[in-house]
């Protein structure tokens, strides 16, 4: 139908099970978690009084990035206590995304629904708990009966606000990360297959074979693009988590 043999979706996304219920995607996720923990443990062992080098340098740059461009931009100075949480989210998602372009592995762990969904549910629990902690039961009251809206519109706006906060937000967080990574992965698969089938084509038209270089160039370009996407999706997930947390701390009474 597409003019080239496209393998079934499970072959692209599932891989073989190492043992039942534990496949290579779970392995990548585990490796990402361990790598992140090790990196920061190593960094914390260095002498904080000396000028930072090596892993500590990397860790400090990352923390600085999270503080400057995620926390300060959304939560403000009082939100600096959220840095560790957002840092964990960012590092874990980035380390799960980046295997999508590492040769031999070439599978982002976030290209399956499970990991983005559990992360989104974690963020969901955290921001609802923050809302209850800061505003008590009034948090749900403010969601259902938003202050600062004309009375005639309150039921409508309240219903929209409630549904969007409780149901749509975790769903869109999940789908954004998952679909972005899977789209990138499938693009890479498509161009790799195109390159292969053109280079190995048994055809009498000789000029067709060297044409395989074109999808290969596209593949190179897309691999570079995927590195950007892996970073950007981790950044967007963390910044959206920060925005949702901020929404439940300040309440909907203040304008923002």
């Amino acid at each position: 139908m597409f003019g080239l043999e496209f393998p079934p979706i499970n072959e692209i996304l599932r891989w073989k099970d190492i043992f039942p219920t534990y496949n290579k995607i779970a392995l990548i996720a585990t490796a990402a978690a361990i790598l992140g923990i090790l990196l920061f443990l190593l960094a914390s062992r260095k002498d904080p009084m000396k000028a930072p080098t090596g892993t500590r340098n990397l860790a400090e740059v990352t923390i600085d990035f999270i503080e400057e461009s995620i926390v300060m931009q959304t939560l403000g100075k009082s939100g600096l206590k959220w840095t560790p949480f957002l840092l964990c989210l960012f590092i874990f998602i980035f380390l799960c995304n980046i295997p999508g372009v590492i040769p031999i592995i070439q599978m982002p762990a976030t290209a399956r629904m499970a990991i983005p969904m559990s992360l989104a549910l974690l963020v969901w629990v955290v921001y609802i708990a923050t809302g209850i902690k800061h505003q008590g039961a009034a948090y749900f009251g403010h969601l259902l009966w938003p202050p600062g809206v004309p009375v005639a519109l309150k039921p409508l706006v309240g219903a929209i606000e409630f549904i969007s906060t409780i149901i749509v937000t975790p769903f869109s967080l999940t789908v954004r990360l998952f679909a972005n990574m899977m789209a990138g992965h499938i693009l890479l698969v498509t161009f790799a297959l195109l390159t292969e089938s053109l280079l190995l084509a048994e055809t009498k038209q000789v000029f067709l074979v060297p044409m395989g270089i074109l999808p290969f160039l596209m593949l190179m370009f897309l691999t570079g693009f995927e590195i950007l996407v892996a970073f950007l999706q981790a950044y967007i997930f963390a910044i959206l988590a920060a925005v949702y947390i901020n929404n439940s701390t300040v309440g909907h009474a203040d304008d923002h």
Partner: protein
Amino acid sequence: MEAISALVAQADPADAKNTSAAIGAGFAYGIAAIGPGIGIGYLVGKSVEAMARQPEAAGMVRTTMFLGIAFTEALALIGFVVFILLKFA
């Protein structure tokens, strides 16, 4: 279009179902990409305008721009998920 309907006509029922699923999948993604495409273009264009006017506010504008992109893009991504569901499921 004629070529597609000819394909549908000569194939057996299971194949016809696959073909129409593929056509539907193509339209699902194509149509879902129109709105977000316009939206993101407008959004980034306006952000660049704002950054050019006030370079000192560039950081804030950039953050808000990424937020806007993330929300707009979600619609196209849902279209992509529908594409995957129609094509492979």
